[in-house]
């Protein structure tokens, strides 16, 4: 069993689907520039547009509403940056609506862009979340007003898996006259996403979270919604994103969503079973633990747990030595000194946030892998607790006495 390799870090990135690899390898000779009129260019163009149709179909959009970008982070930066413009030339009326609302648990690419926008004169308001990571719709109602231009709320959280009610949020946002963006990078391919049903104006997709290649994503921009490119100087993507298209990557993204379409429906139940087995096993075998995230409104593949008295990077590295890959909300692993902003926002104590581990499973994860983790994890936690100043059974801390 020591040779077993378990990859439980699918929210960080996923291995490419064999079908995606096959298609990309077959397309390796396709080097034409989609903007060229000759046969090389036309071949590339046909494949890019085919991928666009697949992505559009997958989320219930029109193909003209899909812009290919370099990453989910770029898509999010693009949407938020629409509202920094000091003039109202690009985005009519944006001068009057210079407030952005987002949440405290967004991905750093949203939070740091928001901070940067705040320095450039945009007013940013942050929604709190409850202990399960859900935003409070009443708080949102209180924040909305005729000064708000954009609301950005992630559909599924990357660390704790909590899902937000985007449909209800969109309705409120539109009633107040603002635009609605959701970062669906973690939700897409795991739960059904239909842009019309959700009622969003902007939606972010990344390929490498759904068994596609890295370095490519897509941004849905609803028809008729004002838009201004982040990267200028080219007619690509109908002038909405300059730069020669990442043809191979786009092809891979197209194939990845297609495969999600086939595989997603049967997957959720299997994921839930794996997660419940993992959750129950941890509960039964390890004392003094806390699960983070919403018990039901959450991704079926994500389980986040805090262990008292142990620091997460140590758990991660001991698990790595046993062939198990996970991630942690501990500060130490990230190189910063602050533990997970998501866990802190849900009210988790800093110490418990430092001791949190995220297991995120994927299409190839098996019950054997879950069982292997359940065999390996308890002795590791016990071992770290034995050398910790912060743990004796029952959770009373040496330091607090």
């Amino acid at each position, binding site marked *: 069993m020591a040779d077993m390799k378990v990859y439980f870090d699918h929210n960080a990135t996923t291995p490419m689907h064999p079908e995606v690899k096959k298609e990309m390898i077959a397309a390796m000779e396709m080097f034409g520039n989609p903007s060229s009129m000759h046969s090389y260019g036309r071949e590339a163009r046909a494949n890019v547009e085919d991928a666009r149709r697949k992505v559009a179909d997958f989320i219930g959009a029109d193909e003209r509403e899909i812009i290919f970008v370099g990453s989910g982070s770029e898509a999010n930066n693009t949407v938020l940056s629409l509202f920094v413009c000091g003039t109202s030339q690009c985005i009519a009326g944006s001068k009057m609506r210079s407030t952005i609302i987002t949440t405290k648990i967004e991905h750093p690419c949203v939070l740091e862009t928001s901070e940067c926008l705040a320095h450039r004169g945009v007013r940013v308001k942050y929604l709190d979340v409850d202990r399960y990571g859900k935003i409070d719709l009443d708080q949102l109602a209180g924040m909305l007003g005729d000064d708000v231009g954009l609301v950005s709320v992630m559909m599924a959280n990357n660390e704790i898996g909590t899902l937000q009610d985007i449909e209800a949020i969109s309705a409120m946002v539109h009633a107040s006259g603002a635009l609605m963006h959701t970062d669906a990078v973690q939700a897409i391919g795991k739960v059904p996403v239909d842009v019309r049903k959700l009622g969003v104006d902007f939606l972010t997709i990344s390929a490498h979270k759904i068994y596609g290649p890295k370095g490519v994503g897509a941004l849905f921009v609803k028809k008729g919604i004002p838009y201004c490119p982040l990267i200028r100087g080219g007619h690509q993507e109908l002038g909405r994103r300059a730069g020669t298209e990442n043809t191979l990557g786009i092809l891979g993204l197209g194939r990845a969503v297609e495969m999600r379409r086939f595989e997603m429906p049967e997957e959720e139940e299997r994921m839930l079973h794996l997660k419940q087995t993992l959750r129950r096993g941890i509960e039964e075998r390890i004392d003094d633990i806390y699960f983070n995230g919403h018990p039901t409104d959450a991704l079926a593949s994500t389980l986040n747990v805090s262990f008292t008295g142990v*620091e997460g990077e140590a758990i991660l590295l001991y698990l790595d030595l046993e062939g198990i890959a996970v991630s942690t909300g501990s500060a130490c692993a990230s190189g910063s*000194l602050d533990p997970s902003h998501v866990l802190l926002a849900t009210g988790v104590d800093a110490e418990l946030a*430092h001791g949190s581990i995220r297991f995120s499973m994927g299409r190839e994860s098996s019950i054997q892998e879950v069982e292997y983790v359940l065999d390996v994890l308890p002795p590791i936690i016990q071992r770290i607790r034995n050398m910790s100043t912060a743990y004796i059974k029952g959770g009373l801390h040496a330091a607090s006495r």
Partner: protein
Amino acid sequence: MLQAGEWAYSETLKEHFMNPKNILQGENTDDFDGVGMEGNLQCGDQMMVVIKVDKEKDVITDCQWKTYGCASAIASTSVLSEMVKGRTLDAAFHISPKEVALELGGLPDHKIHCSVLGDKALRAAINNYYTRNGKEDQVKQEQSKVICQCMSITDHDIEDAVLEGARTYFELQERTKCGTVCGQCKDESEALLEKFKHIHFGA
């Protein structure tokens, strides 16, 4: 194509992480002559060092520890516990985080702060030994006051940083890591920074 490196840190660090030496078993410290504890759980690092001392020679005969922290923190306390055995109290008192990092085969910059608590806990244990044995005169009580609770940075550390060239709060943070966690000490640190600048450099 390159393969994954053997590990995130040095081989020595890995060895001390996989097989930490001299872990204090249980909670009982009664058999030891000096006990010191530094750090806090909110910041993600806490270390306790306990020592046994040959009272004739003032030499450390045993050193054990507990650490709440990451791999670098665990390994640095482990390697420290090996380093101090057989040293005189005076020599052990002057072990610096740099020496610990060196012994570990080096630490990445962002991990240095994980290793600074071990030697502080050791100094606290040595002082605790002096106090318990009626040698209060030898306690190297720097009469210092902890300003930054998160990183255990004292007014003395801030003074040292100023003497070594820190002139702005940012430079102070670069040198000491003071105020880099919760940031509550910012006002007090800035006041001290100005005070020491004035005392030493008339600024």
